[in-house]
């Protein structure tokens, strides 16, 4: 790696070190440690909302283009100031609390929902040596924290005292619990192979171009994991909790103004962090040739977010029973097979293991979809009569 590249690669790390050194000249040791935490924290706290704001813009632009229209292009050049205008609008909107609502919990829900979304940022390796806290249980931490997201959604839906919210909340709970299972199990092969739960070491295990996604079990795991992340952050085609055409806005029907914006923020930050984790686990994290590590990381993450937006522009929504069916009857067995396949791949090295793993996965996918009768489209015949 040439020096310019390595300078670019570690630019953020060096910036932080330099700042800390500067502080160290004036302040005692404990303050430097505190400052180190504060710097990382502030960066993450700012990164979250900024990413969210521009994700909304990106989403609207991309969906617009896919629908043959421009998307927002009035506020600022190419509509770049649109998120700020939206933010101002949200701040100045009237905050409506339903009469019968449980006021405290109604207020707390949008605040609480942002917390887990921000906490996941802690273990995301944005680049070489750019993990805020390299926990030894990183992956487990991420799974644990993201499972808390159910709680504020419950709070919001229950406190609104609205039937649509209530149904939305129920759907969320069912959906999140269901999809957590295949999501967790899809991660298991990665942990098996990298023999660590720490996100940084998982990335290190995918040195160079040995990304896990290039193996059969990795590809299957990635697809399953990605489907589950889409479901976890309630994005189409799994957006049942806020299904517009059925439940108006689901659990946040009764929210307006800034509270609504917080729900939205959490959703988009979740979309970002979950994509980031998917990148870390399967797409080699910041690993990649030629470009600085953090460029690789953000490129891959935004590619996944683009895919999420693409899904949104293309698909209708599942129904509740179908959603559950996919999680339990299709994804869960596939993850179990995938774990077996990963073991096989580990013990039979070389091309034999590779092909064998691929064949087993393909066969089990075909078998499972064929067995799941209700999801298979029927053959239809239409008569044309005079």
């Amino acid at each position, binding site marked *: 790696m040439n020096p310019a590249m390595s300078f670019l690669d570690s630019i953020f790390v060096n910036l932080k070190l330099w700042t800390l050194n500067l502080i160290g000249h004036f302040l005692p040791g404990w303050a430097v440690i505190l400052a180190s935490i504060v710097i990382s924290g502030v960066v993450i706290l700012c990164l979250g909302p900024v990413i969210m704001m521009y994700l909304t813009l990106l989403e609207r632009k991309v969906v617009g*283009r896919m629908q*043959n229209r*421009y998307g927002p292009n009035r506020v600022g050049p190419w509509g770049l100031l649109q998120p700020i205008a939206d933010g101002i609008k949200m701040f100045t909107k009237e905050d409506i609390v339903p009469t019968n609502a449980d006021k405290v919990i109604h207020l707390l829900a949008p605040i609480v929902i942002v917390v887990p979304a921000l906490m996941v940022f802690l273990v995301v390796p944005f680049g070489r040596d750019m993990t805020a806290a390299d926990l030894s249980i990183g992956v487990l931490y991420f799974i644990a924290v993201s499972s808390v997201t159910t709680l504020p959604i419950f709070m919001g839906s229950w406190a609104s005292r609205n039937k649509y919210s209530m149904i939305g909340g129920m759907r969320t709970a069912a959906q999140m619990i269901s999809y957590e299972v295949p999501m967790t199990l899809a991660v298991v092969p990665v942990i098996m192979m990298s023999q660590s739960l720490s996100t940084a070491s998982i990335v290190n295990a995918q040195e160079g171009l040995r990304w896990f996604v290039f193996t059969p079990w990795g590809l299957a795991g990635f697809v399953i994991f990605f489907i589950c992340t889409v479901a976890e952050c309630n994005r189409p085609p799994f957006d049942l909790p806020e299904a517009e055409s059925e439940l108006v806005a689901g659990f946040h029907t009764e929210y307006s103004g800034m509270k609504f914006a917080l729900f939205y923020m959490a959703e988009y930050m979740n979309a970002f962090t979950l994509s980031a984790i998917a990148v870390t686990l399967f797409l080699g994290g910041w690993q990649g040739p030629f470009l600085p590590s953090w460029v690789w990381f953000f490129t891959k993450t935004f590619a996944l977010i683009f895919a999420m937006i693409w*899904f949104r522009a*293309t698909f209708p929504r599942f129904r509740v029973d179908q959603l559950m069916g996919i999680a339990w009857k299709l994804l869960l067995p596939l993850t179990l097979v995938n774990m077996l396949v990963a073991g096989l791949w580990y013990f039979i090295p070389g091309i034999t293991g590779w092909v064998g793993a691929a064949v087993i996965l393909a066969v089990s996918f075909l078998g499972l979809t064929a067995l799941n009768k209700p*999801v298979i489209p029927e053959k239809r015949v239409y008569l044309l009569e005079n």
Partner: protein
Amino acid sequence: MTRPQIAKEKNPVFGTGILQGMWVTMKNFIDSYFKKADQGGIFTIQYPEELCRISENSRNFPFLVYDAAPDSPRCTACGICERECPTKCIHVEMAKDTAGKPLRKPAVFEIDYGLCMNCGMCEDVCPFDSIFMDRVYEIAGRDRTKDMLIGKDALLKPNAYFQKIRPKDAADIDARRKAAEAKKAAAARPATPPDAGGTAS
């Protein structure tokens, strides 16, 4: 004998339909950057800068035509449009001179644009070629009782304007009116309203 039919086969592998759909949206995404509107590109019209093409037949709200000056409009305040208007949004009062003799021109001619439903009935029934459908659409107001009630002064527009927005119909009508006038001059007796000449616009 087999009857003609269309069979929709199912996909061999679950998920291919989904991928096919994603390809369609992706194609549109790419086309939106490289193709023109009628070939699959962006078809939005950027409103204040760009305006839709308005066809000659386009109709919106009625207006009145005058030939020489606004105080001598074609309208004779006969009240046919007032009677035939399906929504009853037209209000006409005939002008009277100081002696109380009717003047065959409107003193009050009001159209409530808030009520008008752009049907064009007034244009169809007017025997004096006086009321026509305009195509102005930027008429939003803040008060539906005041801003949408359009009085005589605002309704009256010169014949040149009518010739501009609907050249073909205006030419027909002008020719017809000229002929009628010539006939009237020749016969030197009061003209009868030209009934049913030409087409309904």
